[in-house]
């Protein structure tokens, strides 16, 4: 510590405008932090797997429903996995702010939106992995999926957009609440309550009339309808929402709803983060 400090001042290059290198750096950093916190990866997976593998078969047995019901619930649990995982990912934003390196990152010569996008990339990747695990486990448990190439595309696009939108919600909430405790207190209302209304365990037309209309307004309802259309080749959930004859039209309309949700919430997440980052 007593050696000569190296000369510090050299001409700096002009500020670079390429956002991909810093985005990759930030995403890599976030991934490393998440990988060192295995609970971030495992905890959100537990409840959906419990639903898919234990509760759905139990319901099937108790209610004497068909095998298809297991598939219905298995796909429905995707609607729990995505919100839970993205909301848990949002906790890392609070940890970063309270005891991590967020202030250092805010002092970096990069657009601050990159911090949100880097977190989103990792939350998206982890969620995708968890959905893959969930589906693989469900398949191993004997649940049958009826997947076509087109159906897979509907499923992937809808699931991706919903994940992006939910992460936007997580960033928005994380930027607005002062403490982790308050954030966690609000997670059930955002991640779990809509799941019960969105046709996860039963079709939405089984709900009381006004709740059916509420369900039709939820992006999750549209996502699950598209997931079931994609993975089970079952358009009935879309039909319960739109009541049209043309399935592709109904799927496209639902996709527009989910896409709008993704764009709105991501924009909100970036704006709220950027505004709260600068006092």
């Amino acid at each position, binding site marked *: *510590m007593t*050696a000569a*400090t*190296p000369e510090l001042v050299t001409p*700096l290059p002009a500020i670079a405008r390429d956002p991909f290198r*810093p985005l990759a750096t930030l995403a890599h*950093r976030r991934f490393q932090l998440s990988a060192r916190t295995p609970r971030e990866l495992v905890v959100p997976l537990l409840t959906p797997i419990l639903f898919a593998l234990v509760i759905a078969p139990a319901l099937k047995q108790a209610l004497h429903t068909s095998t298809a019901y297991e598939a219905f619930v298995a796909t429905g649990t995707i609607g729990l996995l995505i919100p839970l995982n993205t909301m848990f990912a949002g906790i890392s934003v609070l940890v970063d702010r309270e005891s991590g390196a967020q*202030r250092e990152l805010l*002092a970096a*010569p990069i657009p601050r939106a990159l911090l949100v996008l880097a977190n989103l990339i990792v939350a998206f990747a982890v969620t995708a992995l968890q959905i893959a695990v969930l589906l693989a486990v469900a398949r191993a448990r004997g649940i049958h999926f009826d997947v076509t190439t087109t159906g897979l595309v509907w499923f992937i696009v809808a699931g991706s957009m919903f994940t992006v939108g939910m992460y936007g919600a997580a960033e928005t909430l994380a930027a607005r609440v002062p403490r982790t405790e308050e954030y966690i207190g609000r997670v059930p209302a955002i991640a779990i309550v809509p799941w019960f209304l969105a046709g996860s365990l039963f079709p939405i037309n089984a709900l009381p009339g006004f709740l059916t209309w509420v369900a039709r307004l939820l992006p999750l309802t549209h996502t699950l309808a598209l997931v079931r259309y994609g993975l089970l080749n079952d358009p009935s959930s879309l039909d319960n929402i739109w009541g049209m004859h043309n399935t592709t039209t109904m799927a496209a309309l639902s996709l527009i709803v989910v896409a709008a949700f993704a764009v709105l919430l991501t924009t909100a997440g970036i704006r709220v983060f950027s505004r709260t980052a600068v006092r």
Partner: protein
Amino acid sequence: MELAIEVNELAKTYPGDVQAVKEISFGVEAGEVFGLLGPNGAGKSTTVGMLTTTILPSSGSAQLVGYDVVRQARETRSVSSVVFQEPVVDRSLSGRRNLDVHARLWRVEPAEAKARIDELANTLGLTALLDRPLSTYSGGQQRRLEIARALVSRPRVLFLDEPTVGLDPRIRAELLDVIAGLRDRTSTTILLTTHYLDEAERLCDRLAIIHEGTIVALDSPAALRAELGEKIVELRVCDNAQRTLELLRERGLAGEDAFAVGATITLPLHERGAPETIAAIEGAGVRTTAIATREPTLDDVYLRLTGGQLSAAA
């Protein structure tokens, strides 16, 4: 001389009409170590926040190396680094990874970054620790790593925001050596905020005393002390100190720069001799519990300007 930091009537008012910084102006020359000295709540960190673009000024302007902190925020950030008051690190990552992330975000070329990290680790005594997670570092090691991190990108301007707060005396002394090393061996402009007088006196070429959002004095530590002359008399009085001070002024024993805090009166002597002054005080019937002469300190300067005890306030 080129100004690395130029601040013009910079002000910040928080919601609720809280005026944290009130139209302050100062310039810091390239290569200078400049101190912002003041107690907590004086406006030091808000000023640093505005200069590092994490706090938006309410009015006024500031430039870093010619870049406007509001209109050219990213450019401003590209030429500066910050060591924050409290640890701001990824504790589960290694020291090397923390430095590497900084290097990449500040766009230091990978080969140069690697050499630079090794060089700084060697300089700051971190080589053996560099591949360990930061959670295993002591407080002083963590602080040294944060300083190394700030230097990886070769900043034109380095902000040290109360870097020794909360450290034990041994680590604090160690860190002051590190910062003094930067001062002596580099030409980076350093803006240091502190409420420790010894830090300011040891490290700063010039310093601004900031009080309730306003700069109340700005000069070199020696020049600020010189305003009080070479010697002062300090007396603890039995009666009301303020009334006693007025009495001493009436008798011509105290000038306008004398001040009272609590039961203590401080009299800069200037041209007056100490023995005669003490004799005159005793002759004036002032009842004292202690009386002594000493050289003025920055604390005296601060007391005179603000009427508050710097260390106690901090």
